[in-house]
């Protein structure tokens, strides 16, 4: 018969023995844990959106869907265009019918569920278009919540999704404060804008930047002071979306209005 004292002793030894291999399996370098960069990367991708130049044609959304094989008619998209209309009696309306894929060809505001709001042109105080895409945050909440390491941040600031490794739990979709992520109906994995990583790494512009006839979108290297995007951010008045979340977004907006969320 085993004594209580022996049992406790044995259990303590056994538990210590069990715990040890886990700790010993990997020697963790404090530098990797704190994610401190020893030296700055040579490339840090950033984006500039001009909310005055944007006319809401939606060609960026169309080009993105084709380039990145996002199902054209499904209610998912990597980028979209929002319309904001503020009336003179201080009412705010915003819509993005079909993510702005077919442009804005009516003054009616799409309220959803088949409801529309007619607004007369003379009642409008201000109105403009804002395009949205992944902010490629410096502190990405989407990456922190991934339980399997399927989404991650590269040294150049781009977040990618490993479609083979993604288990489709949807945590990242919920975590993104900007609602950028979606579940890809074909690949059954989380999907998001990655600044056309296959293009920018070959020295090309993103598909949306190429498709925009109004130069309302620009992509650039934030570590290069001569880059037009960096110059604009350093010398002009730009804002980012939801800076209160501390995510440090790298999509900058020229002339961004307070009403934009």
């Amino acid at each position, binding site marked *: 018969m*085993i004594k209580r004292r022996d*049992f406790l002793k*044995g259990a303590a030894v056994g538990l210590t023995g*069990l715990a040890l*291999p886990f700790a010993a*399996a990997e020697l*963790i370098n404090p530098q*990797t*844990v*704190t*994610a401190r*960069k020893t030296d700055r990367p040579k490339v840090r991708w950033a984006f500039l959106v001009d*909310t*005055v130049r*944007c*006319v*809401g044609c*939606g*060609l960026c959304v*169309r*080009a993105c869907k*084709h*380039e990145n094989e996002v199902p054209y008619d499904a209610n998912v998209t990597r980028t979209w265009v929002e319309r904001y*209309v503020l009336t003179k009696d201080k009412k705010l309306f915003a819509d993005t019918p079909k993510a702005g894929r*077919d*442009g*804005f*060809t*009516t*003054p009616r505001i799409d309220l959803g569920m088949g409801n529309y709001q007619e607004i007369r042109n003379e009642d*409008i*105080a*201000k*109105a*403009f*278009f804002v395009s949205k895409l992944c902010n490629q945050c410096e502190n*990405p909440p989407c990456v922190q919540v991934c339980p399997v*390491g*399927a*989404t*991650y*941040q*590269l*040294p150049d600031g781009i977040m*990618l999704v*490993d479609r*083979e*490794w993604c288990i489709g739990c949807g945590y990242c979709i919920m975590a993104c404060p900007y609602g950028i992520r979606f579940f890809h109906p074909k690949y059954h994995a989380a999907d998001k804008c*990655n600044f056309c*990583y*296959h*293009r920018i790494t*070959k020295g*090309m512009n993103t*598909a949306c930047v*190429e*498709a925009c*006839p*109004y130069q309302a979108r620009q992509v650039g290297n934030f570590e290069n002071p001569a880059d037009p995007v960096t110059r604009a951010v350093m010398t002009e008045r730009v804002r980012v979306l939801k800076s209160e979340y501390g995510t440090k977004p790298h999509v900058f907006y020229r*002339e961004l209005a307070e009403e934009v969320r």
Partner: protein
Amino acid sequence: MKSHVWRPLYVVIALVIVVLVTRYIYVPKDFAVHERGYMYGWYRAGNVEQWKAVPDKFKTNEYCKDCHPEKEALISKTPHASIQCENCHGLAKVHPADPPKLAADKSREFCLRCHYPLPYPSSDRSKIKGIDPEMHNPGIECSNCHNPHKPSLRRLK
């Protein structure tokens, strides 16, 4: 110290070994902590190459102008010069192999993306000339009268 009390322990140890062995076999060798550290840089390195290898399909005017210089010459002097060929004609991909023909979107709705008049203050949309689609020759394709490659109103096609 032979006792049934130890048996569950052996089971646990066996389970741990099974998990570790499975992990060793199942997890790819390039799955590790990379430059951005444990919090953000924990991933399979091979996936980055997979993303880089995605073929680009939007080829831009640089790709089109070598074989279609006359179209390029025509449109480059018009306000439509900033519109990429592929915005209307569809993505070139590896044209002419695939797709062999690029059909332009000639629908009224396509032109109205820019030319529906929305006089929005603080947006450049208000600067673009527009037409009321219900009053301006409804039901006819715009390209019947206007040449999109040479859209001047003074010299209609």
